[in-house]
């Protein structure tokens, strides 16, 4: 019996709040924003607001949010890791986890002190150089999956991932694969990169990397959505008729 099943109780035996807490501890994919830093300015991220005029009200509100933000203290991180039993995502709402000032230490903590729990590191920003990644991968346990956001190939990825050193991110993925690190290449399909899907598949095969295509209907005045066949199958909530 796996850990999940041994923990599952009948929801009828719990009140609403117990049910909520039980689910969060055992069956959720929790999300921890480690930091507030990221060098990218992806058009569908809050960071894109920073490109607006200084008097723009939304920019002012977002700048205030950054002002109130900080790197998670390691003590606080451990409180979270003690609460959630599994499937913990280190994923930024507007930041990249690898920019936490003690990121190597966090890798050590996750790999050694919490080795029974699985972690996902969602990253699209580049770090200093390949040496930085090599050290990070050496600290990465088998319980950690790196998910790299490279949307297309290195020539097209920076169209959405503004400021991304896509070559370095790609090289880091290849290095991770060579070092037997669990990883995933996450490719969001847009109008400007949909022609590269097959090439990406073949590159992923060549380097023994798992490729995950993400289909989205989102677009903005800065980014063109994929053609219809590559768009997400939308779940349209229609009114249900009850006789």
């Amino acid at each position, binding site marked *: 019996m796996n850990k999940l099943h041994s923990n599952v109780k009948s929801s009828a035996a719990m009140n609403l709040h117990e049910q909520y807490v039980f689910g*969060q501890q055992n*069956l959720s994919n929790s999300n921890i924003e480690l930091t507030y830093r990221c060098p990218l300015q992806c058009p569908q991220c809050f960071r894109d607001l920073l490109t607006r005029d200084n008097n723009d009200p939304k920019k002012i509100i977002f700048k205030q949010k950054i002002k109130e933000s900080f790197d998670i203290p390691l003590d606080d991180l451990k409180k979270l890791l003690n609460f959630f039993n599994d499937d913990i995502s280190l994923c930024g709402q507007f930041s990249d986890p690898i920019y936490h000032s003690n990121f190597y230490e966090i890798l050590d903590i996750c790999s050694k002190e919490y080795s029974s729990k699985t972690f996902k590191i969602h990253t699209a920003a580049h770090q200093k150089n390949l040496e930085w990644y090599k050290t990070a991968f050496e600290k990465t346990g088998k319980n950690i999956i790196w998910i790299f956001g490279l949307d297309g190939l290195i020539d097209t990825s920076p169209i959405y991932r503004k400021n991304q050193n896509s070559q370095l991110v790609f090289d880091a993925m290849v290095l991770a694969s060579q070092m037997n690190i669990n990883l995933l290449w996450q490719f969001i399909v847009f109008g400007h990169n949909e022609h590269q899907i097959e090439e990406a598949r073949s590159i992923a095969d060549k380097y023994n990397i798992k490729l995950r295509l993400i289909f989205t209907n989102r677009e903005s005045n800065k980014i063109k959505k994929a053609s219809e066949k590559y768009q997400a199958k939308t779940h349209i909530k229609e009114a249900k008729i009850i006789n």
Partner: protein
Amino acid sequence: MIKKIDPQCLYNGNDIKIRGIAYCSNGYLLPCCWLDSPFFKKELSTLGLYDEELKLSNNETVDNIVNSKQWKTFIEIITNNYEQAPFKCKKQCGNEFT
């Protein structure tokens, strides 16, 4: 028209993955990352989710936070009180029945 939220963050007896709690860069926990927007802060503050006592650094454990009166009220609202639920919860997890 009956309006109801089916919260994706609530365990319903199945082994299906649910949306998890989000830790935000300002040191607070929110019921899900969809709520972590500076533009929802005012609305969530009225529900008490940004009360100083709920900051993670002011608590020994996460249990203290999720078992607080503010969080209990929040879960009750999104489950049973559609009108008072945050806009984002209605948008992402809301259903309308006729």
